[in-house]
């Protein structure tokens, strides 16, 4: 944990590991007079599944916005897919938090996936023109619909699907461009337990089959701990990255949060975190949407 207050004033000139999908060095964010976090380091390798964990207000969503290029760093440096954040938008799949898509209720789910691929293109598709390209687009949409297991309901209106089905469609939309990085903001919110496990498994599958690194923000590590490669814990303006087995321990988490936290290891080797500061009341919380367009 770098605590030197001066170090983030001088951004590092170059990044050692140029193959990393995400590389954040000694970064800090201040919004107005408030320091959100300082001394944040994060490295994500291709195909790696990383969870960003911590209580509300720890700055998890702010970190995602930094990586999307929507919030500037006030210290340190960050790169995403070998460029400054925001420069490789086309190669970053993003799943925003709490998305209802109320206006899409009567639109076919498959069309929502297709928008992820062609929605930002100017002009309208002209019949009989670029036929090959449009067939390729359709094939790609079919492919990701199958990838998320939505083949049986992708033809139905989006509003008629269950919460878990909608989340699968939105994940398909986020990966349809073959991104190198998939950023998911609280994708398990408002899902029941079986659907939480299913969505985590799906993200794990997508990581390995599409060779995409996934960065997922969550309150609760327990539904996903079996699938993760590494975690980034954020609390009290600081952050701590590492593989599951070294970071998710009673000593480390208790030290980080400053409250007693116990990590139990079950007979089949799974870790269960008990006494997280956030766990009991994570439903019904409103998160700040001040940066909504």
């Amino acid at each position, binding site marked *: 944990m770098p605590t030197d207050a001066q170090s983030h004033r001088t951004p590092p000139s170059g990044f050692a590991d140029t193959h990393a999908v995400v590389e954040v060095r000694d970064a800090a964010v201040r919004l107005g007079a408030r320091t959100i976090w300082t001394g944040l380091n994060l490295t994500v390798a291709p195909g790696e599944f990383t969870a960003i964990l911590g209580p509300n207000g720890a700055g998890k969503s702010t970190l995602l916005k930094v990586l*999307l290029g*929507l919030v500037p760093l006030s210290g340190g440096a960050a790169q995403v897919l070998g460029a400054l954040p925001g420069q490789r*938008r*086309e190669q*970053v799949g*993003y799943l*925003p938090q709490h*998305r209802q*898509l*109320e*206006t*899409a209720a*009567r*639109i*076919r789910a498959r*069309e*929502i996936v297709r*928008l*992820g691929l*062609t*929605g*930002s*293109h*100017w*002009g*309208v*598709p002209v019949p009989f023109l670029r036929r090959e390209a449009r067939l390729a687009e359709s094939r790609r949409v079919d492919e990701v619909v199958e990838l998320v297991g939505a083949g049986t309901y992708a*033809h*139905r*209106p989006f509003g008629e699907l269950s919460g878990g089905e909608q989340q699968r469609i939105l994940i398909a*939309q*986020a990966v349809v461009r073959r991104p190198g990085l998939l950023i998911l903001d609280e994708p398990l919110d408002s899902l029941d337990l079986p659907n939480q496990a299913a969505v985590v498994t799906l993200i794990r599958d997508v990581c390995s089959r599409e060779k995409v690194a996934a960065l997922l923000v969550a309150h609760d590590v327990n539904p996903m701990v079996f699938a993760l490669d590494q975690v980034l814990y954020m609390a009290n303006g600081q952050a701590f990255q590492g593989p599951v087995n070294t970071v998710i321990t009673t000593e480390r988490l208790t030290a980080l949060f400053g409250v007693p936290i116990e990590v139990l290891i079950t007979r089949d080797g799974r870790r269960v975190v008990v006494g997280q500061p956030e766990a009991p009341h994570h439903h019904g919380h409103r998160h700040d*949407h*001040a940066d*909504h*367009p």
Partner: protein
Amino acid sequence: MSNPSLSWNLVWDLRELLAYPFMVQALAAGTIAAILSGVLGWYMVLRRQTFAGHTLSTMSFPGAAAGMLVALPAALGYYVACVIAALAMARRPDAHDGGGGIQSARIGTIQAVGLAAGFLLLALSRSILGGLDDLLFGSFLGITPMQVWTLAIVAIVVLGILAVIGRPLLFVSLDPEAAYALGVPVRALETTFLLMLALTVAATTQITGALLVFALLVSPPAAALRLAARPIPSLLLSVGCAVAVIWCALVAAYFTTYPLGFYTTTFAFGFYLAAVGAQQLMRARTRPVTA
């Protein structure tokens, strides 16, 4: 047209109808207005901006009053007033209002101010607004070739712009956050859409009147969105429905003594009811009945 009467020979009826230039112009203007409102109304209903559309339609009153005050055509007043209102409605770049509640409150305020301004302009010009019935409920008797050409130019401009921005606008309308993250200019598209809607409303108002512009702008898209789940078929259905409404209404108004506005609204409502019925039927078929 001393005594128009509907016979059972449809070809004969059509020939009689098209013998009058005013009727040809009414059909041309009606068709253009229907295509425009079928397309723009589809986006408007999808984006849940019908209140914005309604406010724009009431702007024809201050528009016409202002036109009279400075001795310019009422139609020009419509366009100017609608465009000003659309710009006032567009979200400020620095706004953090986020919710539809504040947005609709602002639109309501603009509507009240617009109507009050119309009243003031009317008092200033010291006259009564001629043809108030036509302003509110529409007329097809007085459409000039000049008006038809103006409509055609507005339609070409608006549909031309939409051909370029249609897909990103759909993305922004359905999924603004994902579109924003991919670098789609959300605010610019929203403002452009409001401006195009303003031009469409100003154009359509001349056929349907200020109060009944909704018949063309809301009912056909609402019907289409119930029937088709894919954007392009839904959009085409909306246009087809709007054109059918205006044709039926014009023919009915020609052969009877009742006003056009009544027929436009009635046929539009009829199409909407038919769509609701068809949707129920489709649902009943796809979902097996469980005891």
